[in-house]
């Protein structure tokens, strides 16, 4: 059970990110929370592929023995780029919102309601 410590830390990170998204009243902090969740999920995927005493799945100068699973690393590469794209979009929206509303407080950025 304690060997699952990487998973536990991932879950704690996810909860921190979600906490920031629900309780922080600043748009930038909401985006940061989203990024924390994203990093945590990436970490989770990578740690799923770990094999005990495994080496990186590269055959150049490989000492032999078990290799860690390669697919999670490939998936993480893709999802990191996707996360960067998402953050870029969200932060550019934040710039515009600040320009038009003069604030980043989520309680004031609500001209659309009901």
């Amino acid at each position, binding site marked *: 059970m304690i060997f699952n410590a990487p998973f536990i830390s991932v879950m704690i990170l996810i909860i921190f990110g*979600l906490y920031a998204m629900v309780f922080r009243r600043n748009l930038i902090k*909401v985006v940061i929370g989203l990024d924390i969740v994203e990093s945590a999920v990436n970490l989770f995927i990578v740690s799923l592929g770990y094999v005990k005493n495994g080496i990186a799945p590269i055959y150049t100068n490989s000492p032999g023995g078990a290799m860690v699973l390669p697919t999670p690393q490939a998936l993480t590469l893709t999802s990191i780029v996707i996360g960067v794209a998402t953050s870029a979009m969200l932060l550019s929206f934040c710039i515009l919102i600040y320009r038009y509303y003069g604030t980043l407080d989520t*309680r004031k950025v609500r001209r659309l*309601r009901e």
Partner: protein
Amino acid sequence: MMNPFNPSISTPSGIWNPLVWILVFLLSLLIAYVIYLKGEKQRKKGMQEEIFLSGNKADGNTHIKASNIGWGYLEAMKGYYKLMRDIHTGIINDYVGWFLGVLATMLLIFLFWGGVR
């Protein structure tokens, strides 16, 4: 395979054919027109053509605003709409919060109410 150009569709307890409906609709229009033709011939212009709005005489240019339509309904449902207005806060934190809330509810429902077969 069904014939795609057959307009009728059969439901568990009946059948629906739009062409028959259109025929009946046209027929009822015809009957209405016949009744209209049988109306009083003595009717003159200007007898019953004044426009009233809630008992007040109105000229032809009054337009009821959208917010005033359905006032009675909105008044009757006041409590419900107050609740709804409170829920729709428009704060982004609450949007995420509702998502997590439904997620938690769903997890609990599946835990206690048979998600695992």
